[in-house]
């Protein structure tokens, strides 16, 4: 018997301490995080391996051996977090503040919380001493938030032995407590994701004195270009995957039936998160123009976070943006030059998917479990690229407010979700591997 109350206290304690480790990327400095998680595994008498990819950046790998009758399952989580705009936070972002049943801190949902759930599942399997058919590999990687060149990308290139598994679980899909404005228990298991194709716009003009306005102000060129992009409606694109997704939601009563195309479209457009799955998104995230209030800037730059639907071509997208910008004073280039190409979607109809489905349905009768597409990018793409069914699965029911914490302010996870996540994760892994 597992003493879940004790496990919950343990998980909360680990979670709080983990959130206190500042792994803001850039620069990352994920080594202390790897060492922290590793020490908890070592305390169970297990071996760990630390793989340095850059100074102060490490991958942590630990393994529970199976009997070899089935392929391995990797539990993969990233240890880095995105930067914080501290002035918009109501509490310190790296102290693991517990307040009103919530645990606040950068990484609470993305993805240190899930890292703790995976760790607890891993530790419990060991403590329970259950015989395993599959190897279970716990893998904590750095640098996911900045492109993974020093994390999963590095690992696949330099240590393919570590990623030699049959299945993988990481972030990218999760449970939602509300959907389309209504209460729901909708668990998404991400089998596919969009392709990052971020663009940098550089406008060049003529410098000058602010007291003498002229027409060749790079800030104005850039602003007009951003406005043209903002006004560009790229419509709604259905793919076989997303069509299947909508059908499942309709069956569960969460979407209008496909026959009512107008209602479906209206509902998609009402929800930004849903809409992002049906369009190549373009988000102005950075603008940098000018050095001084009285100097007309010669050069102005903007960064656009762009995410393409699966199957789209990055270069074709860049050309389309150039046509929309329609200004040869503006250069349009990729933020990351040699990004990984789109990975194929993972097969959803697998033993792992059905295990997840069954575990959740047994625990919550009215839950809906659907394969889905992640609108962001995750490390799963590297494993899918190797033909491994890699699923995004955070086994929590996040409220809209919790979901807003991904790269947002006052990021938190409720204690209730942490507890639910630990139990569901353990049960999925146990059932799948034993």
């Amino acid at each position, binding site marked *: 018997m597992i003493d879940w109350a004790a496990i919950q206290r343990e998980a909360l304690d680990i979670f709080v301490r983990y959130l206190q480790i500042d792994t803001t990327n850039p620069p990352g400095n994920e080594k202390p995080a790897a060492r922290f998680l590793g020490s908890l595994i070592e305390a169970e008498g297990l071996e760990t391996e630390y793989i340095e990819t850059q100074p102060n950046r490490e991958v942590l790998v630990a393994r529970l051996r199976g009997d070899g009758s089935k392929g391995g399952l990797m539990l993969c989580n990233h240890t880095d977090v*995105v930067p914080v705009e501290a002035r918009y936070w109501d509490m310190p972002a790296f102290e693991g503040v517990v307040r009103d049943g919530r645990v606040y801190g950068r990484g609470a949902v993305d993805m240190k919380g899930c890292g703790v759930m995976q760790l607890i599942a891993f530790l419990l399997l060991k403590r329970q001493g259950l015989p395993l058919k599959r190897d279970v590999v716990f893998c904590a990687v750095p640098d996911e938030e900045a492109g993974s060149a020093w994390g999963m990308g590095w690992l696949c290139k330099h240590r393919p032995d570590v990623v030699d598994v049959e299945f993988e679980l990481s972030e990218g899909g999760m449970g939602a407590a509300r959907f389309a404005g209504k209460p729901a228990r909708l668990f998404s298991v991400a089998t596919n994701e969009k392709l990052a194709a971020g663009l940098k716009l550089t406008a060049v003009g003529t410098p000058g004195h602010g007291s003498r306005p002229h027409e060749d102000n790079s800030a104005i060129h850039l602003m007009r270009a951003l406005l043209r992009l903002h006004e560009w409606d790229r419509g709604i694109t259905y793919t076989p995957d997303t069509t299947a997704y909508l059908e499942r939601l309709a069956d569960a009563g969460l979407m209008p039936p496909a026959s009512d195309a107008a209602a479906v479209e209206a509902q998609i457009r009402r929800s930004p998160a849903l809409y992002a799955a049906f369009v190549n998104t373009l988000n102005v995230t950075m603008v940098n123009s000018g050095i001084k209030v*009285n100097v007309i800037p010669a050069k102005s730059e903007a960064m656009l976070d762009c995410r393409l639907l699966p199957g789209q071509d990055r270069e074709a997208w860049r050309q389309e943006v150039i046509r929309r910008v329609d200004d040869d004073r503006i250069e349009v280039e990729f933020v990351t030059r040699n990004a990984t190409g789109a990975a194929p979607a993972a097969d959803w109809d697998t033993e792992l998917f059905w295990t997840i489905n069954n575990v959740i349905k047994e625990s919550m009768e009215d839950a809906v479990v659907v394969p889905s597409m992640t609108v962001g990018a995750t490390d799963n793409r590297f494993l899918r690229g190797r033909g491994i069914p890699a699923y995004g699965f955070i086994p929590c029911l996040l409220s809209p407010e919790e979901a807003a914490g991904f790269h947002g302010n006052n990021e938190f996870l409720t204690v209730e979700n942490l507890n639910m996540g630990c139990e569901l994760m353990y049960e999925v892994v146990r059932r799948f591997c034993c």
Partner: protein
Amino acid sequence: MSRIDWDAATAEAVALLREYLRIDTSNPPGNEALAVEFLAGILSAEGIAFEVAESAPGRSNLFARLGPPAGGVCLLNHTDVVPVEREYWSVDPFGGELSDGMVWGRGALDMKGMGIFELMTFILLKRQGVELRESVTFLAAADEEAGSAFGVSWIERHRPAWMDTDLVINEGAYGLVSSRGPQVFQVAPTEKVPLWVKLTVRGRPGHGSVPHGDNCAEHLVQALERVTRWQRELRIVPIMRSHVQAMHAAGFSNVATDEAALAEAQRSPSLRARLSNTVTVTTIGTGIKVNVIPAEATATLDCRLLPDADPDTFLHELRDVLDDERMQVEVLNRFIGAESPMDTRFVQVVSDVVAELVEGAQIAPEMTSGFTDSRIYRLRGIPAYGFVPCLLQPEELAGVHGHNERISVENIRLGLQVLYEVVRRLVSA
């Protein structure tokens, strides 16, 4: 009194300017103490007493006086320069290079070149033993390019005696030469009034992969677009009417009437800037990471009002144009316009000297479209004039706050000679 050897004086001025331009006083941060040290060394060598006052660490101002202990003529200059965008320069902006008959570097025109004319004038008056009926002061001030808080505004509060003068000669108007021949020395008794505004708009942060419609960068872009489409009234203030007529009389333009000037302003940004309140978007900033929707975006607007415009009315109109309640409008500075008279002995002397030294040259009143430290004196009722006695081609003028700033050796000679003669006549017995 021996005659001045202008070849030697010019060579000396060129050498001093080259050395001065090598001192990087980009503001921010300024580091004008380095410039003051340089100027102090020169004055010491001439046996001229001076005072130095530090307004902030690394930032200081220098003052010296010849002749009677109060009043007289102040030769005012600022020691700081605006930052450079190095990638656009074909020479080292702080190299003091001399080539093609030009001295190159940030500040050559704005205004270390004029600073050297003033310094040399000051020194020559001493060397020549000119008997001074009136006082001459040399004041090198910091921080002009960032609003003067550590320069003349600081001096006003902490060293008021340095501002004891009856007349100020400063930057604010250059002479112009056209390839067709006409030459004009401009004298500026007033300037446009800066109003620097910061716009801040907040939105909802979030993950870059999900556009959610409340992105502050997009709010800002939309509001700025409305600002750039804003049509403002064109209006001819009296000093500009005199300017237009004088430039016509000097053969510099074929625009003589108000009507023609208004028409020309549609084509010429520089004339338009002096016939209307202007708004320039100078900075836009937001974002921490390409995959994070930022929470706050800011922009600055460099607005320049006609000397008689009411800033509050202007701000009210700006808010209407921005048309976004989420937008915070913050005034970064607030100046007041003032004008010095043109019917003064100074203007008469300039006119005489120019006519004697430069054949066929005329003078024209001008309104400075930028702002200078003169505003602080004018508000105290002290006549202050923008008068840099060089004759510049349009492409040389572009170097002011632009790239490849430079001044010709020929202009150094001209500026030195004209300024010296003007000051000598004003102050000698």
